[in-house]
């Protein structure tokens, strides 16, 4: 089953299940990039509240997805990390997660909006006034 992607304004929201498969990851990446490319959204918030464990494979998947969104011109933010996950990631090694993060979904949505706005919106418009 595909991981559902919701749209809130110009931000895509998705919540990763605990038992994410490689196929689901690829589908999610393609779906999210297609929506961003079609002009339906400027960014993506990935919620990992449900992810019981973030191992190096999951960390790679998250960082890669963020990089894909970024080179398309969008913004990806990771939200909802559990304290135990953060502790373990730091214990395991450096730079496990290479992407923007936020406390929760709300913060993630705000961060995408702010980051897109700070560079002049989707099309880098010159401010008119």
């Amino acid at each position, binding site marked *: 089953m595909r991981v559902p992607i919701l749209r809130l304004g110009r931000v895509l929201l998705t919540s990763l299940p605990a038992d994410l*498969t490689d196929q689901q990851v690829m589908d999610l990446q393609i779906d999210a990039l297609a929506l961003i490319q079609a002009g339906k959204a400027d960014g993506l918030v990935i919620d990992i509240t449900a992810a*019981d464990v973030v191992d190096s494979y999951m960390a790679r998947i998250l960082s890669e997805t963020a990089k894909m969104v970024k080179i398309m011109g969008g913004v990806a933010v990771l939200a909802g990390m559990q304290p135990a996950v953060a502790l373990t990631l730091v214990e395991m*090694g450096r730079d496990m997660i290479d992407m923007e993060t936020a406390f929760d979904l709300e913060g993630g949505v705000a961060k995408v909006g702010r980051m897109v706005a700070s560079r002049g919106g989707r099309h880098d418009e010159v401010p008119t006034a």
Partner: protein
Amino acid sequence: MSRSPGFPDPAVLGPAIPGPDVVGPDVVVLRVTSEIDAAEVRQEARRLALRHGFSTVRAHGLATAVSELAMNLVLHTTRGGLIRLTAQDTPDASVIELVAEDDGPGIPDLALAMEDGFSTRGGLGCGLPGTRRLVDSFTITTRVGEGTRIVCQVRRP
């Protein structure tokens, strides 16, 4: 199949009979061939650790180590492998032993595989070194063409 010293195999002994002061080892064995198996075994690992009095953070660390080793079985072998978790309690401590073994390709350069930043499958290259940092003891034996066996222990006082 080789046995770990001190941890009798329940399959040999039969089901442990719980007594007032004799508690048999708590064992979980799972064959891991897919990502779904990996998700299942790491959830089992967390439950086992919590059942034996490990803190949430330690239980999570063990679950992550199990996840790393299980995902290695999924990604680097064609037939998967076995994950065995054995918890042994003493009056004031508890040890969980984690064994991951497979008959896969083996690791040609072990020193390199244990280095941060080395990866053959496009990973982050911190699977094995990261796992080693999450556990109290870590032993790996590998032979090219025969397989790999990793034994880890986590303890709580």
